[in-house]
């Protein structure tokens, strides 16, 4: 009986990790697709999207990076705090 519960628990854990892994792989595939697209557009001439409109999209990219970084960092802090709260 006890063994079964443990088995169920571990099954649940593996399913959760698998879900997480699949999420990360989708993200990775998306990112590589975007990068490869940007690179192919980069090769022939200067008129790719990043350099259009006076390179304003470089500013957009930098802003997006910083925003994403700050959000990710805040989510990490949030998780740490909830972990601390749980261990009360």
């Amino acid at each position, binding site marked *: 009986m006890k063994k079964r519960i443990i088995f169920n628990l571990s099954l649940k854990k593996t399913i959760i990790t698998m879900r997480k892994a699949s999420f990360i792989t989708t993200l990775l595939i998306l990112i590589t697709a975007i990068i490869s697209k940007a690179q192919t557009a980069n090769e022939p001439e200067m008129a790719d999207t990043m350099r259009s409109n006076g390179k304003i999209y*470089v500013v957009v990219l*930098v802003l997006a990076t*910083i925003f994403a970084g700050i959000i990710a*960092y805040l989510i990490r802090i949030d998780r740490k*705090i909830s972990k601390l709260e749980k261990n009360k």
Partner: protein
Amino acid sequence: MPVPRLNIINESIRNLYYHVPMWFTMILLFTGSFIYSIKYLRGGNLRDDVYASQLTNTGIFFSILGMLSGMEWANYTWGAPWSNDPKQLGTAMSMLIYFAYIILRGGLKDDEKRAKISAVYNIFAYALMIPLLWVLPRMVDSLHPGNGGNPGFNQYDLDSNMRMVFYPAVIGWFLIGLWIATLKIRWGLLKFEKENNFQFEFEKNHNNNA
């Protein structure tokens, strides 16, 4: 807000409001950490160590953001994300020094020992960061705007339009950096308090049993 019209940089001159304040915030946070490390060494209060370590962590976070934003920008202006620019190299070195700080802290389990050794290390790291970021890149030519004969915004920004945005932006980023650091410090202090309470109760129980 109109910005100076420059070749190569074009509109990406607006990155001045985002990329540069990242480094300013990093330096502010590292300075705070430096002060708290000295305070810890003088007073021996472990709460000061929590302040110092969390300020450094947040500073490292901002250095990563500054490095990423700089590399993204360099890819479209210098032609490659990494071109061994003296400022890039100096920053990479001081980032590695501060990464080693985290590793050093992770490797020491005893609270007092960790606090003392990492406080001394932090002071050395800060003392190394000053020449690496402020002195050495200025002694050689850099690809950065405003260095090595490249026009910076201060030569073209005659009507101070960029300053009107840049200085408030710096203040804003300072506040964001300090806010994130205080969040982390509050978390660190809570954790510290809890661990010490636990230790206290353990000692009490232990004494009662004995």
